[in-house]
Every structure is written in structure tokens, then in C-alpha cells.
């Protein structure tokens, strides 16, 4: 029988003290215990990118992170982006450019894009293709996703 452990997680600026199984991933705990269901499970082995979140400024896979190993880290999920219901310009760009269809890959795609823009505020189309190569989408063909990221860059620059 596994032994549950207490872990303090800082998520979207809020601190939570949670009782978790050590084998549980951050993805599982975010979704099941914190009801932050915006982060999705598409494969559970780090390939599809739907579970991408930002931890200490870097894009990581929530499905490959253990909840118990995630203390003292600044965790941001898709739910943490808007302020008082107001979307960030990148989120708005995904809407305006139709960089989404079924929407399942969208949270992960946005988090990866945000992490990219934080590192590199004006990426080229090749930088975008490289950095988002690990976020799989089956609906859009990626063109409008790239358009959305590029238009968000223009908005930020102006």
C-alpha cells in the first residue's frame, strides 16, 4: 500500500497543502485535487504536449512531473493566465487568428508559446516551429497556430 505524503504546491499564485500519493503526477493532482482541468492528458508519456505547464519560467510536462517533487516551484497553468477574466494578448491572438479547432491541444500550445516568448520576444517562424514542435495538434495543420503566435508578437511590440 502506498503512503500518502503532504506537499505544498504553489499554483497560479495560490498555495495549496495537499495529501498525495508519491506516484501521482502533477497532471493528476492539478486535475483531480485542484480541479484545474485546463491542463489535459493526451498520452501520459510526455509526447503530445497537451499537459504542458510553466514551472519556474520553463515549459515542462505535467504528466512527467511528480506532485511530491514539485514543492518550492512557481507553477503556472492555463487557468493562471487571465487576470480578473481578462485574457492575455497571446490567448486573444489564438482566438482572433483561429489558432484552435477542437481546443484540446490549445492550453499546452499556449503555455509552450508563452515560455518561448518569455525567452525570445521576437522569434522567427523557424524558432516558433522548433519550439512548438513538441506540441501536437491533429486539427489545425499548425499554420494558424503559428499565425497566432506571430500576431501576438506584433501586438506586444506595438
Amino acid at each position: 500500500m502506498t503512503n500518502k505524503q503532504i506537499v505544498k504546491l504553489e499554483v497560479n499564485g495560490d498555495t495549496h497543502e495537499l495529501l498525495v500519493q508519491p506516484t501521482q503526477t502533477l497532471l493528476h493532482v492539478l486535475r483531480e485535487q485542484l480541479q484545474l482541468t485546463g491542463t489535459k492528458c493526451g498520452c501520459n508519456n510526455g509526447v503530445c504536449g497537451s499537459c504542458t505547464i510553466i514551472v519556474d519560467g520553463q515549459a515542462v510536462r505535467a504528466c512527467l512531473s511528480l506532485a511530491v517533487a514539485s514543492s518550492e516551484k512557481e507553477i503556472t497553468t492555463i487557468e493562471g493566465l487571465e487576470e480578473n477574466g481578462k485574457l492575455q494578448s497571446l490567448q486573444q491572438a489564438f482566438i482572433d487568428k483561429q489558432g484552435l479547432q477542437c481546443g484540446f491541444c490549445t492550453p499546452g500550445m499556449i503555455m509552450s508559446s508563452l515560455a518561448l516568448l518569455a525567452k525570445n520576444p521576437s522569434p522567427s517562424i523557424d524558432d516558433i516551429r522548433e519550439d512548438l514542435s513538441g506540441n501536437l495538434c491533429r486539427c489545425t495543420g499548425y499554420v494558424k497556430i503559428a499565425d497566432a503566435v506571430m500576431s501576438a508578437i506584433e501586438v506586444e511590440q506595438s
Partner: protein
Amino acid sequence: MKYIEALSLQEALEILAGDDEARCLAGGATLVAMMNADLIAPSTLISLRRIEELKGISAVDNYIRIGAMNTHSDVANAEQLLSGNAFVIRDAARQIAHPAIRNMGTIGGSICHADPASDFPGSLVAANAELEIIGTDGLRQIPVQDFFVDYLETSLQEGEVLTAILVPTTHSQAHGRHLKFSRTHGDYATVSVSLVLSMQSDVCNYARVAIGSVAPTPLHLDTVDNILTGSKLNDDVLDDAANLLQEACDPIDDVRGSAEYRRKIIPGLLKRAIAEALG
């Protein structure tokens, strides 16, 4: 399962000594994936994330010392690894999977897993790296090719922890290249070529080549290095080198390609890797 964050190497070693089903947790990129797939169920997981000696990249004696807990991103962006033997390692790191995986996986974790299709093993062999390992008996240092024993098997003994990768600072003017050929961007390599080359005008005066994904461990032949060294790297020489590699390799059929195909493309990829290293 119990989860412990070791505060020192000593603590980690003590726990390992006392529990033979305990595993070390580095970045988790592979370990957690295996747990998710119910492939492993460690009794205790010892996180190495707090151990200072495993972090950082620094110059030590005649080496560049890369702490085992550096992530692939750390290695890919390290300014200390921009030249000489180290460059091929940096080149390999930046091509591993995708950014989110590179931010999580560690060089130590990756090479202890010893997947011959991954990028570090071949590049470390080409870089002539050594590994620093700690056990209850103290530190030992071994050439990296002695570390990779078989598919997913290393010479790390029970109770030991890999602490650092040591890259010799010789051949500071050398060119390096990790050429990775994969089905899709970020996939494991179907075949990879890692090399470090030094030229004296148009003559090669140092060469070290390793081929990945064509055997259970990185394929390195002294005979290949010797054929290239002292030559002008013309086509005949490269063909001879490639033939040796084709004869010695032991690839498998898998979803990324057949054994025959992998063998077939070695010559072309070797030539390409050399051209890219020098170009």
C-alpha cells in the same frame, strides 16, 4: 512508494545501501513515464534535486565538469561547451526531443538509462568524456565507453550514483557535430553520427567518431579514428571508414527502421556529418 529528497550525496548513498529497490530520481522524464506505464514500481524514490554537487558546469583541472543534474537545456545553452570536445555534447543536447522535455531531463538521468537511440551516449564517446561516479567506497572515474555495457545497461554498480561528466579540454580548436537523423523532428534517432575533428590546413590531425542507434551501445572503432587521422578526408578514406562501421555495427529492426536500412545509410551520414562539422 516512499519519496525522499536527499539533502546530500551521503544521504542518497545511505538510502541506496539500505534498500535495493530504491531508485534515484533525476529529472523524471524517463522514470515517471515508466511509472505511468506501470513498467517499474520502486519502493523508494530518492530525489537528487537538492544536492549541490550535482549541479553546475565549471572548469576543473583539465576538464569541463558537467554536473549530472544539469538539464538538457542547461547543457544546450552552456557557454562553457561552445568549443573543443564539448561542442558535440552541446549539439546533441539541443536536439533531444522538444523544449519541455529538455527542460526536465538531465544528462545524468539520460545516460544512466543508456538507451542507445538517445543522443548523449554517442556524443560523449566522440567527446572522449569520462564519468565521475560515487559509491560508499568513494569516487571513481571511468572512460564513458566503459560505462555503456548493453541495451539499457550500464556499469553503474548497485548503490552508486553518477555525479558528473568530465570533458577533456584537449583539442580546443576541434570541430564537433552531432548529426541526428530521425523520422520526425524530436524523435529518437534512427541513426546518429557524433564526431570531433581537428584539422591542420587540409589534413585531419585528430578524429573521434561514434555512431548511435546501430548497436546496443555507441559504436566507436579506433580503426576508424586511425583511418581518418592523417588523411585529407577524401571520399576513398571516408568510404573505408564507413565500411568498417558497417561491418561492425549490429542494428535491429524496429519502428524507426530496419537493420539493413540503418547499415545502408551510415556512409552517407558520416560524410555529411564531417562536411557539417567543417562547414
